[in-house]
């Protein structure tokens, strides 16, 4: 029996100015290379949600684009939360992660509720955190590029994606690193929220395969993933790309 995965891409038109669509491309390519049939459903403002999905992706976008999707997001938030509770993995990048957290405080202090999918809350600030970033995580060294004006706080007990070796991370550009090591992102069950572009999954394929495994588990399918030479070759280039970033950052 052919395995299949349904990926929901939230607001690709508004929240997709930074190549985050590469995450969906990586999921599709890597699943199809394993003989898994992939459907990508795009959800834009006003669309009806599909009955079920196995993986949800939301990318980043400018503040104006975030505001343009906020009402629609509020309307679908209960379904998103229910999916997450049922084990659907979510990948949320930067601005998209901000919207899926508990709340977003604007620069003027006005706080608006988020979709409540991730155990994090964010305050937007003027100081931008822009540059390459390297993290140490349970899944090894992760790398990417961050470009955000935000200070993200994780709820008590929430697990960060990794510890920042070089870069800013959740605390943003104004952070004064005290004794606590700076952290980046959040891991909540099989879901990840992060500021990392690169894009995140092509640059860090270990997480791409984790999402596919979690999606297959949600679909009730066999979660074994074969090694495929084409993917091994791509992953070698990604390893070299991460190494190049680490080298530039003097690590």
């Amino acid at each position: 029996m052919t395995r299949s995965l349904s990926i929901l891409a939230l607001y690709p038109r508004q929240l997709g100015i930074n190549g985050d669509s590469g995450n969906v491309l990586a999921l599709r390519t890597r699943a199809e290379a394993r003989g898994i049939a992939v459907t990508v459903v795009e959800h834009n403002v006003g669309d009806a949600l599909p009955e079920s999905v196995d993986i949800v992706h939301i990318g980043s976008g400018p503040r104006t684009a975030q505001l343009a999707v906020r009402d629609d997001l509020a309307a679908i938030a209960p379904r998103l939360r229910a999916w997450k509770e049922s084990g659907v993995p979510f990948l949320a990048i930067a601005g998209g992660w901000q919207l899926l957290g508990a709340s977003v405080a604007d620069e003027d202090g006005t706080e608006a509720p988020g979709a409540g999918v991730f155990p994090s809350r964010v305050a937007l600030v003027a100081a931008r955190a822009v540059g390459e970033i390297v993290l140490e995580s349970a899944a090894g060294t992760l790398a990417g590029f961050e470009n955000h004006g935000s200070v993200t706080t994780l709820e008590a007990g929430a697990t960060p994606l990794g510890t920042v070796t070089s870069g800013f991370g959740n605390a943003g550009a104004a952070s004064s690193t005290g004794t606590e090591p700076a952290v980046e992102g959040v891991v909540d069950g099989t879901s990840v929220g992060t500021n990392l572009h690169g894009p995140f999954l092509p640059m860090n394929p270990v997480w791409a395969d984790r999402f596919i495994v979690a999606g297959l588990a949600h679909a009730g399918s066999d979660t074994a993933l074969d090694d495929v030479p084409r993917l091994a070759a791509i992953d070698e280039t990604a390893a070299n790309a991460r190494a190049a970033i680490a080298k530039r950052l003097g690590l």
Partner: protein
Amino acid sequence: MLTAAAILLGRAARWATRLRGGGSAVPGRVLLAIAPRALERAVERMPLGVVFVSGSNGKSTTTNMLVGILRAHGVDVFSNPSGGNLPQGIASALLASVPLSGRLSEEIAVLEVDEAYGVNLAKVLRPSSVLLLNVQIDQLNRFFEPDRVVKMLATIAGAADAHVVVNADDDNLVAVAARLAGTAEVSYFGVDPALLSASPNGLANAEVYSGRTDAAAPVPRVVVERLAGVDASVSIAGAHVGVRLPARGLHYAVDVAGAAAMAERLLGARFRPELVASAMLGLDTVYGRGEVLTHRGEDIEVIMMKNPPSLQLNLDYLEEAPEQLFVAVDEGTPDPSWMYDTDFGHIDHVDVLSGTKAWQLATRFGYGDIPVGSVVPDLKPALEKFLALPKPARGTKTMIVNYEQMMLIRKLLGFLELENAP
């Protein structure tokens, strides 16, 4: 007196940096440090005023075209050289032609201005007319989001009191024009709707996320009607003119339309549409835009990967997939993530991939199923490897590179010529 002294000192700096082969911004900095009002003074009595050309993409090309069209009409024009669009760059250009009186003797100044610096430059130079080209996803590491660019361009356009000329196919700019409160007269240029919808990825202008304008769709005075290779047809206030573009691509035809639209407004009854065609034939290629380099008698076409929209349009208008392709990107493009949104359907392989971002691009091409011959991050060996390929059976060797790699390649080609000389 102070002005004359400052100009002489600036000229001395210009002479010194030229001897060293150094950067062109230094003399301008010297001038501005000594006479901060030098720019303001230089342009304040120009009969046709000051024109700013700004937008995400096509500033240098369009400025070059507008200058060419005006000169074809016999107008004496002052302009800044391609890319010198920051205050010190403009001041440096000034030093080359301003008399010791400190006032430019030309009739008009046509200046390419950076979107961000343009805001303050507009206060100093008080442009009478502003030509706005587009708002595109560009330099996110610097501008963060397109809306900031929209605000900057709105401020720049707000300074004009004669003409504001705007791209009718850019929703953000149409909204900017609709909100202008000043006395300037607004007019538009654009692309015939059928031609626009035939462009594989449109014009790649940024979407308007909020505040859609209620204004009626603008009626452009200058319209790109047809395009075939480098030949385009443009209607200018009713006249149909055939023009030769500097390189393939609808974006270049749009640049012509913008330049012609501004020239028509500035010159009024003096404007002659046929001079647009002759001006286009006489243009020098703007540095690195649709440029052809020659190495040991072999032509190499260079496509500059300036930003996502220009790369997309350059790819969309390739005649065929290049038989031999070199790609190089370095830290001049801090985050090449956006290349995942680029449609690479017009290339079928890369021979040599170089630059500090080479491995990141290799990953991109891996997911795009575009085979890469070799990845050589160091430019010199990469270039040597590519140049060692035999001449392609069809077409020319092609390079897709960012600006910084382009500069290094030009230098290296010079060195390689010397090294290879008998």
